[in-house]
């Protein structure tokens, strides 16, 4: 079954056609990567999936539910978890509280006015488990502001995971990471992808070839090639448009 299905997505900014008939799908247990040169329309695509922008035409279907017109928070409730290209966390909250809040979003009503949320054991335990899974459990009580860049990336991922997502939308998770950190994150994601399908937008080719089951090449708002990583590596159109472009 396809967890995410995007059908004929179209978006224009004035005369610029930034998404042209984009269709792609992410089946259960798989990682679908989107690559493309800068300005190809990757960010616009992500925005349309996460609800920052509305497409002019086309549909976004998450776990069988049409979320094209849904608000951002409704998409999250429907099971979309995402990380940002530029990390976005709650700086004054502790690491644990960041993740516990994400868990709170999926665990009953938050219109509760009396009982201290910080003492809700199930939220804290869930958050702690997620942090430990990403190996930053020892940083749980530190303010998120004090984390290193790499740790923040992991915290973002933890926030996304704590929401028990049906699909992870990862926007350049490797950006700004060193070699060691990247390798570690790739390991973590490789571990995760069988249980949580992913749509991965990334520049790091190592990451893509290690993680992706399918790759779509986006150029000028259009998907010019789609297939297994090995096929894409040898696809002339993809090479010309993207890999060649990168070589210049």
């Amino acid at each position, binding site marked *: 079954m396809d967890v995410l299905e995007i059908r004929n997505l179209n978006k224009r900014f004035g005369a610029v056609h930034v998404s042209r008939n984009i269709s792609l799908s992410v089946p259960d247990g798989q990682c679908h990567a989107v690559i493309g040169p800068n300005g190809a329309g990757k960010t616009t695509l992500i925005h349309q999936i*996460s609800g920052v922008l509305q497409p002019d035409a086309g549909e976004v279907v998450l776990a069988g539910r049409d979320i094209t017109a849904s608000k951002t928070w409704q998409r999250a409730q429907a099971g979309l978890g995402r990380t940002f290209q530029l990390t976005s966390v709650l700086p004054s909250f502790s690491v644990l509280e960041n993740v516990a*809040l994400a868990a*709170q979003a999926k665990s009953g009503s938050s*219109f509760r*006015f*009396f*009982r201290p*949320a*910080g003492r809700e054991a199930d939220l804290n335990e869930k958050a702690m488990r997620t942090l430990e899974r990403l190996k930053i459990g020892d940083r749980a009580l530190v303010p998120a502001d004090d984390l290193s860049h790499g740790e923040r990336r992991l915290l973002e991922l933890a*926030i996304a995971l704590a929401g028990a997502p049906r699909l992870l939308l990862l926007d350049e998770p490797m950006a700004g990471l060193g070699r060691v950190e990247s390798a570690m994150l790739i390991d973590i994601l490789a571990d995760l992808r069988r249980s949580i399908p992913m749509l991965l937008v990334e520049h790091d080719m190592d990451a893509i070839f290690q993680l992706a089951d399918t790759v779509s090449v986006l150029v000028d708002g259009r998907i010019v090639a789609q297939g297994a990583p090995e096929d894409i590596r040898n696809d002339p159109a993809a090479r010309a448009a993207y890999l060649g472009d990168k070589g210049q």
Partner: protein
Amino acid sequence: MMRVDRSFLVMALIFALLLAAPFVLPLVEQTYLLSLLIKAMLLAIAAISLDLLVGHGGMVSLGHAAFVAIGAYAAAIGLESGIENILALLVLAVLVSGLFALVTGALALRTSGVYFLMITLAFGQMAYFTLTSLAPYGGDDGLTLWSMATLFGSDVVQNGGQLYLVILLTLLASWWGVHRLSNARFGRVLRAARDNPGRTEIMGFSIFRYRLTAYVIAGMIAAVSGLLTMQHAEFVSPAMAAWQRSGDLLVIVVLGGLGTRNGALLGALFLVLVEEVLGSIFHEWRLLYGPLLVLMALHAKGGLSDLLFPAHGPETTDATRANGEQI
């Protein structure tokens, strides 16, 4: 944990002093001070509710006095229409103010930041002018009340009874309520939305709903302050809704320290004190008060709580953050 206990300690100390005041002050023939303390406590109740918006929610409202005034007027009009029980008037005041908060809040929260500030200011002014045009209830001049509310016929809630104590208990209840609320699930979402609305929304929270709920709660608490203000002054007037009163409330929460446990209370006591001391030195005390605010804005960032109790508890960190954050 130590720091948390400390802010509770400060609170307990202030409450002990406030509780002792009506017994001690008459002995030293300073009953005038009691009315000042009442004024400060009534301001503090309204300021505590405003701090829920500004300090915890990052919503800078410049129309909060309108809720106080609407609460007071709702109660006064109820009283004039023959409702005498203060509990019935309480329900009336809270409902009317809450309804006004629901409607204006839903409109104001379609925007954010400085727009929100301007819109709350405008709706506050609308309330002010509407009250001045209520000719049957005194119009511009306000309305003097000849009989006051009772608690099932008892005068315990009147000036001749234990109104001081009632106000003190209400203050304690508001303080406790907002304190609990800010640490509960709801308050956590509210603070998250203040720090990073985009992230909070993407976690799956409709921040509009949480903010609107907070706005309505704050309006309701302010209405309680309005009801008690009416009961104490035995008079209501549109001046209660003047935008300068909203400004004063904002000054109080900023002075006291945003989002801190005791900030609103300290700020209210301080403001009443400043007004009294400066005012007793010379009549045109506002000539000093104005520049004082300018200096505060330019130099002091953490508010009184930070100044008096500089230990950085987790809440103070929040407050400094809210200060630095663009609303």
